[in-house]
């Protein structure tokens, strides 16, 4: 549009052209003026020549007439007259022809023209007189002829005089105006000079002004004033240059604005990063996200949805801009539903959409009878590496296209948020791990200490009796019992330490299975016989049912450990009650089931109890390190089997071990 002003691409050249043409016209005009002024001189000269010619011609006429006149003087008789007639007539003829020659020379002199015509008349009359023959009065004729000749002479003289006067006048005029061409030339030169100076100065001045404006502008721009706009004076090349300069400054300004914007955004992102880095828990992270969403992005709604632990559900963690009812409705929903958030989580791509398009894009939304607020929605995936953590959703009041900057900002925010959430989760885990470890340490120290105390007491009492000399009290039965007790305590300590060692082995991945072929029934019977004492101590019994025995290639010692662990647990939680042990087979799996009649386990604890340092009930109630189930699970996992629990609170619980039946050679 600005470009339309500059359709005249070479206006300076055009202007120069017009100047040149004006100068050319001026020169032509000057030449014409000079020609006109010299024309009058030329005409005067022409006239002078004409009059000169006329005078010489008329002098010749006069000669002819005079010679005719002289002839008449010589005439004495009529005979003479006849004799001379021929010469006389010849003279008259000459005069007449001269007269006709001189006629064109005197066009500008009416009186002379009149004279000439009179002369002509007189010559006519003269001829008549001469032709008059056979007349007695020839003398009178002669006289009349003389009279006519006289008239002619007179007229010629007068004509010559007038001509002379006219010539004098012409000459004096010529003389007077002899400097006229020079004057005209000088005047024209002066005019030309003034014209060229005025035009040139004005032209160069305009250009100079434009250029000085430009220079001023460059100064201002170099000092940082990007709002300065140079005024365009002429729509010529300088004008184009000025316009280009203005545009350049404009784009510079735009660039600077963008830069400022980018800096702003960076600062904002840095702020967000700082806020996120201070946010340790997920809740703090959510606070930061919501603050940014409402303050920086001017969103009217915001939601944070995270993938549940089992990856099958999405959990709405935080919702802004909607009722509590909505929050309750979507607190947890399957990931299979086709919602914007689920789609974003599944594909890991951001989604920017108008709410008008939502219904036909996402029919599930309509089914859930949920209506988004606002006109446009931005749904962004929270990802760490390739793992989807969840999604952020922002709703905006106006229907609009998001600029690249806004999208970038939102994505950056999302990235930061994902990292922060991830971090907070790790933080949570770490915190929990530390708590668990601390708890474990206290339990472990307590557990390790428990057998040590009676051991120490017994040893001290034996030592005291020996010192007091009352060693007689130490009967072999008593000593035997003492040693037996101590041995039990030491065994307990050993088993505790073995457990710890196992845990460290498992953690460091050093659990090695020594597999042999054996029958499960034999193995369990051995365990039961070894475990008779503790059962007796706990006043419990084991109801062992073998539905179908299985043999396989397993680590016998480790599986014994698993069975002992399960029995110990049963004894621990249901002392004095029957423990049901069942051996069976299902498809290609050997199954060992240990069922107690204890208090049972809540469903939400089914997973937890197999973790390290965990126990079914709180630590105050039951002793132990809480490692038994963990170690068992690790052993079974190493055998590619599975262990799980089935329980109803208050009606006991059964631990089921499934082992794949694999047979292998000793090698």
């Amino acid at each position, binding site marked *: 549009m600005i470009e339309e002003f500059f359709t005249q691409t070479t206006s300076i050249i055009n202007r120069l052209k017009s100047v040149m043409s004006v100068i050319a016209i001026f020169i032509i005009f000057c030449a014409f003026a000079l020609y006109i002024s010299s024309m009058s001189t030329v005409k005067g000269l022409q006239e002078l020549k004409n009059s000169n010619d006329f005078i010489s011609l008329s002098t010749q006429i006069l000669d002819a007439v005079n010679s005719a006149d002289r002839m008449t003087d010589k005439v004495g008789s009529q005979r003479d007259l006849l004799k001379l007639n021929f010469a006389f007539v010849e003279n008259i003829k000459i005069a007449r022809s001269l007269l006709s020659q001189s006629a064109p020379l005197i066009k500008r002199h009416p009186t002379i023209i009149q004279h000439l015509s009179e002369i002509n008349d007189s010559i006519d009359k003269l001829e008549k007189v001469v032709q008059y023959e056979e007349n007695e*009065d020839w*003398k*009178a004729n002669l*006289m*009349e002829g*003389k*009279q006519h000749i*006289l008239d002619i*002479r*007179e*007229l*010629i*003289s*007068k004509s*010559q*005089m007038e001509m002379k006067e006219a010539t004098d006048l012409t000459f004096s005029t010529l003389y007077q105006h002899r400097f006229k061409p020079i004057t005209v030339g000088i005047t024209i030169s002066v005019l030309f000079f003034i014209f060229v100076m005025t035009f040139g100065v004005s032209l160069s001045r305009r250009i100079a002004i434009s250029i000085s404006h430009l220079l001023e502008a460059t100064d201002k721009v170099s000092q940082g004033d990007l709002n300065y706009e140079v005024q365009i004076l002429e729509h010529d090349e300088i004008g184009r240059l000025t316009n280009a300069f203005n545009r350049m400054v404009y784009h510079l300004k735009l660039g600077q604005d963008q830069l400022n914007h980018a800096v702003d955004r960076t600062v904002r992102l840095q702020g967000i990063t700082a806020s996120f880095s201070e946010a340790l828990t997920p809740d703090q992270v959510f606070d930061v996200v919501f603050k940014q969403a409402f303050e920086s992005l001017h969103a009217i709604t915001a939601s944070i949805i995270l993938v549940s632990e089992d990856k099958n559900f999405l959990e709405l963690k935080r919702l802004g801009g909607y009722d509590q009812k909505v929050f309750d409705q979507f607190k947890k929903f399957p990931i299979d539903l086709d919602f914007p958030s689920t789609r974003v989580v599944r594909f890991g791509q951001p989604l920017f959409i108008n709410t008008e398009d939502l219904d036909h894009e996402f029919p599930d939304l309509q089914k859930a009878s949920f209506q988004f607020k606002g006109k446009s929605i931005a749904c962004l995936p929270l990802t760490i590496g390739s793992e989807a953590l969840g999604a952020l959703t922002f709703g905006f009041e106006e229907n609009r296209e998001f600029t690249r900057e806004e999208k970038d900002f939102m994505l950056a925010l999302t990235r930061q948020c994902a990292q922060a959430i991830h971090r907070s989760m790790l933080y949570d885990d770490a915190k929990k791990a530390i708590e668990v470890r601390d708890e474990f340490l206290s339990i472990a120290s307590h557990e390790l200490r428990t057998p040590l105390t009676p051991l120490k007491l017994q040893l001290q009492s034996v030592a005291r009796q020996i010192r007091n000399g009352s060693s007689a009290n130490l009967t072999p039965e008593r000593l035997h019992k003492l040693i037996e007790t101590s041995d039990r305590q030491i065994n307990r300590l050993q088993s505790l330490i073995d457990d710890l060692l196992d845990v460290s082995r498992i953690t460091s991945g050093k659990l090695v299975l020594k597999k042999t072929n054996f029958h499960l029934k034999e193995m369990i019977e051995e365990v039961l016989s070894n475990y008779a004492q503790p059962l007796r101590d706990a006043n419990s019994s084991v109801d062992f049912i073998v539905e179908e025995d299985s043999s396989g290639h397993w680590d016998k010692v480790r599986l014994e450990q698993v069975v002992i662990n399960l029995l110990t647990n049963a004894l621990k939680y249901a002392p004095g009650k029957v423990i049901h042990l069942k051996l069976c087979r299902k498809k290609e799996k050997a199954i060992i089931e240990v069922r107690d009649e204890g208090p049972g386990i809540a469903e939400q604890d089914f997973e937890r109890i197999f973790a390290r340092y965990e126990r079914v009930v709180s630590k105050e109630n039951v002793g132990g390190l809480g490692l038994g189930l963990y170690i068992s699970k690790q052993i079974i996992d190493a055998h590619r089997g599975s262990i799980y629990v089935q329980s109803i609170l208050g009606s006991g619980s059964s631990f089921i071990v499934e082992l794949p039946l694999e047979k292998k050679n000793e090698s």
Partner: protein
Amino acid sequence: MKGLFTILFILFTSMSFGEEISIIVNEKNPLSNISADRLAHYYFKENRQWPNGQPVRFFDQKDESEVRKMFLDTVLKKTSREVELFWIGQKLYTGNRAPLQLGSDSMVASMVARFPGAVGYVSSTFTSAPGVKKIELKKD
């Protein structure tokens, strides 16, 4: 003394002959008299037209004739030499020429008869001729 005699002689001859001049014009000329002054103007070509517009043509007589002497005395009141000098001057400055000088009264009369605007002088003894008429010369 000799001069005095000459003057006396001239006076005598003029008186004794008692010759006078008559002015003749073409018969078509309506004029019946003319003043000497006007006649002199016509002679010297100071006025070249009759009152009716006809161009004036004056016919003079030869220097040596008595009539001319009379004419010079009575009308022009100049000597023959003065008149000659006058015409030389006129020839140079105006181109005017002296009127044609004729040899006799009869020639004058015949020329006057030929030119409508002609005027001439003859001796008073000259009897009239065809085509001309005498007009009275008014004296001041």
